[in-house]
């Protein structure tokens, strides 16, 4: 080929490549534009807003306060005087953090165990489809309806308390009116609702475990429990990783169950990070402070997710 011909071919190839790239970007564009407008831009605005004081009115009323909002929510003055105990027992952010972390640390393992147990039970039994529908049903039901029904069930003299009393435990207080039990009522409703969804994920994963592995284990003389421990569980590690990442993120963002069942109460026993953000932003109309709390939430969830991803190498099947 002559120089000119080579150049022409290269130009045409470059043009094709550019056209392909353009097509690729145009497919990505709608999703990215939506993400940019509804997620990226608001997050950047929130980061900026956390450095200002704003009451939601005229934009010109924005007042730059630097890190004052963070100083207020972390109660830095009081903590310097009275120590960290003050932050976790009396400051709103400390209490909200404590409650949210407690809720997450209990709910995630509990949901995973329940979902896995259900998946194992319903993997290969008669009428599996029926039971799977039954357990998945709470996930598709209205959250408000679920919370209202559970509120009734957890009342003093309600069916749950009667069951507990029948088992010999002397407890008969309305769960949502007791500052120790209120958070357990939230945990109970969350686990009950979500285990169906994660059960479906585990079912799919279980059915993807190669039969040869199980047969090899049986041939080698492994008991059912040993098979579960040494073959099934390791094979489920990617799913467990995915489930735990999703669950941790969604647990930190819990709002609807709390708002309907306890409204943060009694007192501040079930005050969560997101209910705290909602109160600051929409009831007290302090957008600067609310944004600062949102940043704290963002940093925590980001940190936890990064930790989980960096230990993912242990979870991969290679």
């Amino acid at each position, binding site marked *: 080929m002559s120089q000119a011909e080579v150049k022409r071919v290269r130009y045409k190839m470059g043009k094709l490549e550019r056209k392909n790239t353009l097509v690729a970007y145009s497919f990505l564009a709608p999703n990215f534009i939506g993400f940019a407008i509804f997620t990226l831009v608001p997050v950047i605005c929130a980061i900026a807003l956390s450095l200002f004081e704003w*009451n*939601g*009115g*005229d934009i010109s*009323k924005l007042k730059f306060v630097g890190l004052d909002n963070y100083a207020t929510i972390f109660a830095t003055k*009081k903590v310097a005087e009275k120590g960290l105990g003050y932050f976790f027992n*009396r400051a709103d952010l400390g209490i909200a953090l404590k409650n949210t972390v407690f809720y997450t640390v209990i709910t995630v393992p509990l949901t995973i165990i329940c979902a896995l147990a259900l998946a194992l039970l319903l993997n290969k039994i008669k009428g599996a489809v029926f039971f799977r529908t039954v357990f998945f049903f709470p996930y598709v039901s209205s959250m408000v309806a679920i919370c*209202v029904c559970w*509120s*009734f069930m*957890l*009342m*003093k003299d309600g069916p749950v308390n009667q069951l507990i009393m029948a088992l010999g435990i002397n407890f008969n*207080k*309305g769960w*949502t*009116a*007791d*500052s120790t039990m209120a958070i357990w009522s939230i945990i109970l409703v969350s686990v009950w609702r979500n285990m169906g969804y994660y059960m479906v994920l585990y079912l799919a994963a279980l059915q993807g475990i190669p039969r040869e592995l199980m047969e090899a284990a049986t041939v080698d003389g492994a008991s059912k429990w040993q098979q579960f421990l040494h073959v099934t569980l390791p094979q489920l590690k990617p799913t467990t990783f995915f489930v735990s990442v999703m669950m941790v993120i969604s647990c930190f963002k819990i709002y609807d169950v709390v708002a309907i069942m306890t409204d*943060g*109460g*009694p*007192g*501040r*026993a079930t005050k969560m990070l997101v209910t705290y953000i909602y*109160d600051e932003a*929409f*009831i*007290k*109309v302090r957008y600067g402070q609310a944004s600062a709390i949102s940043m704290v939430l963002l940093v925590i969830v980001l940190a936890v997710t990064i930790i989980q991803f960096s230990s993912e190498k242990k979870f991969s099947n290679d």
Partner: protein
Amino acid sequence: MKKMLSVLLAVMMLISLLAVPALADDQVLTVVTWDATTTPYLIAQKEAFEASHPGVKIEYVDVASQDYAVKATTMLEGGDTSDVFMIKEIDNLINWQAQGFAAPLADYIAKGYDLSGFVGTEVNYAVDGVQYAIPFRSDFWVLFYNKDLFDAAGVDLPTNDMTWGQYAELAKKLTDKEKDVYGTHYHTWLSAVVNWAVCGTGYTLADKKYDNLLYYYTLYQDLEDSGACMSYADLKASGLHYSAAFANGNIAMLPMGYWYVSTLIGYNKDGTCNFNWGITAVPHADDVAAGSSFGNLTGAMINAKSENKDLAWEYISWLGGPEGAKATASVGARPAWVSEDVAEAMASVDGFPADANSKAALIPSSVAMEWPVAEKVSDIKTIVNEEHSMIMAREVTPEEGIGEMNERVAELFE
């Protein structure tokens, strides 16, 4: 074929253009409010205004009562152009004015608007001497009682001059566990249980000291323990509303806001409630005059972004003034405008209890504001309500809860 289609389309467009002027006859005023379809006075006010202002239609934008403040604020922050926003609590207006959403009314009032009928309550809606809203309802709390239950028990009816101690005894007397009758009923709100501390005493809930509330918490817990009222925990869990509870007919007394009168009258008319009821003044503390009560204002403001400010002014000035007051009073609600005509209208409402005590209860001796306009009142409200729920749920004793209120509110101002 194509040419005929385009000619046809052009003709249709022309016709639609001609039709538009005919539809634009009525002016529409959008009014943001709560429970628009179920509140009797809102229906009466709309009918009366449209009747006296032909060519104007009121369009209510209905928001759920529980979330009204948050929803309305969010609407305003989003640039909503509804003409009028009703005001549920005084600090709604204070916030909206600070955010720049309320249109100042000074110019309109200067053209000649008589504020005297509001007997000074309108200052609650003024900021730095400038009026931003007009009140149209002034509520105070009264004691509702189920006459039939009193007659069945053979007990004397409550009077307009009872102390809290006498009220508690009465409640216990009327409680009948076998017949599932409760002597009294407390709604879960802070106002229903302890706001009495502000009646006739000059004390306010923003005074940073809450020891005055101890008496009322102790009174309440004594009544709850003796079964004279439903438990707070059960009410919170079930979400039972006081309007349904009392209308059920098994509660003898209910301290509640006067607005419940128009609801009960409506219930009588549609058959939801079929017993005789009456009202008296709320009980008073031993050292306070009979007829002392606390209350709240309801008003309306013009949205600064409204495009019909003049019409909106016509509406809110009518609403608060003597004409609107008559419409409000006609269904048993209590207007902010005070005059002989209004008092007459209130007493002669069809369905209002006919006994002398109920009529006398219409005139309280003093009405304190439920919450004052004060610095950081929003934060104080949150703290006091949080500790209130702890006390009511028996998580802490009233002394401990009040101690927490004192401490946490004091910290706000350090």
